[in-house]
């Protein structure tokens, strides 16, 4: 027990108890424990089943639109005057973000397990939309828990979910944001154990969720690795991704973790600054704790009570982070840095004008970090960034901040 992954690789975790070093694990109520063990069994069978992998790949190609392109951002590169910048275009996926990769994988698992009802939590609504989409595609009823505060500020996604046939349940308990939606989804699951599959949206939660979500998202990094080798004949010098729970980041990082020459940066939501409480920088400004089934870095007070985060981007507005990121930070393989709301907003505008791509506010944080680093790097160096989602959902938020009422 508690063995750390093999020291000669950063890619062999988690161990059989679901640990990445001290992080991860299975901190759930007894009612859920048998379900989590069932899921683990089914996942272990599925991941080596050629029929499962073939169905996943087929849906990836024909339903999601994979592989997503690797795009050389020529004008942004010229503007910044340093490293060559490539984007992995996950925002071009069906439903507009990387979230669908995970949802397709998990709904295939749900079908294998004979589950007849899907539940999910959502913050910005991207995972909710992706869950409602795959539930419609596979003909299963779907309930999405969403903080009442988020229901208000993400009205277009709420409407999309309803169009897709999902029931959106606003959560007023606690503070009415993503963590409360996750609490409520867990309460539903504990009540409807026989019929229901809980489709978690990020690489967090009890084992095996962090592992299976990572595996479904790793398609991003596997494709990008081949694509950059084809385009440049070598690996990138730096890989950058935004981190909320961290599924898009682990998806692009994981296939590169054992490439020693590739540096990696995960960008957390610095909100209005790390001095107060209005940020979501769990690693940079949090401490280890146990929430939602895993041990990881959390925003919490001295008594172990979980704090509310803040970010301009609802998708990063979560007081925790996937356990594998906590481990990658502690062992020094990946660097985690904060980007403030205003920096993300500036990056959002810059990319829109220079490349004709409206990014979501989540990857805008990664763009802001690229804007900081590219000028300090040589013109022969390469940055690969995960452009994880498109910004259509955010135009109202941005419009309000810029005083351009819609």
């Amino acid at each position: 027990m508690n063995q750390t992954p093999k020291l000669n690789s950063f890619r062999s975790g988690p161990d059989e108890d679901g640990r990445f070093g001290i992080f991860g694990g299975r901190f759930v109520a007894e009612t859920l424990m048998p379900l989590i063990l069932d899921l683990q069994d089914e996942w272990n069978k599925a991941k080596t089943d050629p029929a499962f992998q073939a169905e996943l790949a087929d849906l990836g190609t024909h339903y999601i639109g994979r592989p997503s392109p690797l795009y050389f951002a020529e004008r942004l590169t010229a503007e910044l005057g340093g490293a060559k910048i490539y984007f992995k275009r996950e925002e071009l996926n069906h439903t507009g973000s990387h979230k669908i990769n995970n949802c397709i994988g998990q709904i295939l698992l749900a079908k294998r397990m004979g589950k007849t009802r899907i539940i999910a939590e959502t913050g910005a609504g991207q995972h909710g939309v992706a869950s409602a989409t795959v539930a419609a595609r596979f003909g299963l009823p779907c309930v999405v828990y969403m903080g009442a505060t988020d229901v208000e500020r993400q009205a277009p996604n709420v409407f999309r979910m309803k169009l897709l046939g999902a029931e959106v349940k606003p959560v007023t308990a606690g503070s009415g944001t993503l963590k409360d939606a996750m609490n409520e989804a867990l309460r539903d699951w504990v009540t409807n154990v026989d019929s229901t599959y809980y489709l978690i949206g990020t690489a967090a939660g009890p084992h095996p969720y962090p592992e299976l979500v990572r595996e479904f998202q790793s398609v991003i990094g596997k494709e990008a690795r081949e694509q950059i080798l084809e385009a440049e004949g070598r690996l990138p010098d730096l890989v950058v991704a935004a981190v909320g729970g961290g599924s898009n980041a682990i998806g692009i990082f994981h296939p590169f973790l054992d490439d020693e020459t590739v540096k990696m940066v995960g960008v957390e939501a610095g909100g209005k600054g790390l001095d107060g409480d209005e940020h979501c920088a769990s690693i940079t400004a949090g401490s280890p704790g146990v929430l939602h089934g895993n041990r990881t870095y959390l925003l919490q007070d001295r008594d172990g009570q979980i704090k509310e985060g803040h970010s301009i981007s609802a998708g990063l507005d979560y007081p925790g982070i996937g356990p594998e990121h906590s481990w990658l930070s502690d062992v020094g393989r990946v660097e985690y840095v904060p980007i403030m709301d205003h920096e993300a907003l500036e990056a959002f505008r810059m990319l829109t004008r220079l490349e004709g791509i409206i990014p979501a506010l989540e990857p805008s944080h990664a763009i802001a970090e690229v804007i900081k680093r590219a000028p300090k790097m040589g013109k022969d160096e390469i940055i690969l960034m995960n452009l994880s989602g498109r910004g259509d959902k955010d135009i109202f938020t941005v419009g309000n901040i810029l005083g351009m009422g819609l």
Partner: protein
Amino acid sequence: MDKRFADLAAEGRPALVTYFMGGDPDFETSLAIMKSLPSAGSDVIELGMPFSDPMADGPAIQLAGQRALKAGQTLEKTLELARRFRADDKDTPIVLMGYYNPIYVYGVDRFIENALEAGIDGLIVVDLPPEMDDELCLPALAKGLNFIRLATPTTDDKRLPKVLENTSGFVYYVSMNGITGSALPDPSLVGGAVQRIKAHTRLPVCVGFGVKTPEHARAIGASADGVVVGTAIVNQVASSLNEEGHSTGATVPGVEALVRGLAAGVRGSRLAAAE
């Protein structure tokens, strides 16, 4: 705790186990509530440790936790509650119930030491299944603190031995799949479940989740070694508060009256079984 259950078995009746939230609506009132419980007929006290994200609890207990936290309750103060109670009552077993994170952040070794000093007899930590026994269960057992495990309808016969392996004090049978405060399940099904668990252990089996009235307590107590009441007590506290959420003259007497009724129900339960 073992003595308390043995005495009750000799008396021929099940235990009344009462849960309340430490620090709800404030420290002093919850201390008064705690002190009132034994004379009202409670045999074992479950002292709730508030947590910001109680994933296995319904709205009533979540709101109680929020009231307590807002009034400044911390894990340190919850231990202080127990210490102050213990000064006057050496016998009534106290079980701390809550979630792991506040304990983890407090420090496991320091927590066990301070809990023992405060007169705590056992722990129920909802989000620590047997797979996580290294975290707190084994260190607590090694120092003589009971670790009470929850068994649920999803805990099948294959899994029960694993759940019972490091359990002591009593087994808390959660009568249904769901959160605290849900509707009462069919008492006859509960009776079967209690027998199923008893086939695997000699520990007392207490049943909770959904017990709200003396009639419920009586029905459940017919088959179980103990009846746990939580949400009903927490709701009683909530309904007694004034508009600002502060305690009133009705808060402590209201809880006392409720517990007295439940105690009568429990005391009548073996008669009910014999009828």
